[in-house]
């Protein structure tokens, strides 16, 4: 019996994924509030992995159309917009931070440096992914 025969529609699919991941996030927050960090983290990880598995695997095991070309189009546009904003902000801010820190005008905190490294890693990852996609087309 295919998943679609069991009534697994796009709506059910989306609600299931959001609900499972939501339980994980709620578990993490509850763990932090109740001083049960390990339990909260475990619930979070299970929620993310199970939600992710359902998101990826469900479309492969059903005849129902859970995702289509418009979803891919929306994803591509949202990803492009995110990277354009990140690059615009990153390129204009990060070099300035380096120069101001090197010149002794400001002292960047560890948190800011963490943000700089994350942004740098994101740009590097984007470049690698862009190169891979370009070579495959």
């Amino acid at each position: 019996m295919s998943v679609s025969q069991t009534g697994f529609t796009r709506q059910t699919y989306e609600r299931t994924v959001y609900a499972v991941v939501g339980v994980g996030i709620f578990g993490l927050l509850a763990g932090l509030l109740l001083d049960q960090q390990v339990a909260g983290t475990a619930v979070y990880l299970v929620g993310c992995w199970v939600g992710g598995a359902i998101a990826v695997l469900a479309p492969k095991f059903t005849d129902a159309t859970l995702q289509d070309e418009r979803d891919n189009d929306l994803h591509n546009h949202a990803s492009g917009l995110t990277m354009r904003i990140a690059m615009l902000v990153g390129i204009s801010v990060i070099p300035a931070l380096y120069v101001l820190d090197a010149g002794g005008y400001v002292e960047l905190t560890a948190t800011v440096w963490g943000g700089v490294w994350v942004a740098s890693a994101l740009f590097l990852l984007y470049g690698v992914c862009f190169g891979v996609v370009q070579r495959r087309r």
Partner: protein
Amino acid sequence: MKNDLPDRRERAGLSQADLAEAVGVTRQTINAIERDRYDPSLDLAFELAAHFDCRIEDIFTPD
């Protein structure tokens, strides 16, 4: 692109969900096409034209 998909679909007595299932996309995609908010891929345009037994340019016209 403009299209006359709503008229064709209604003349055929189909709901958006029926048409979506027939051409293998979601109802939201058919809705977005009908509202001129999404231009379908060439593959999907061919599917729609084949479903209504007409040419792509009979359904879709440039703005």
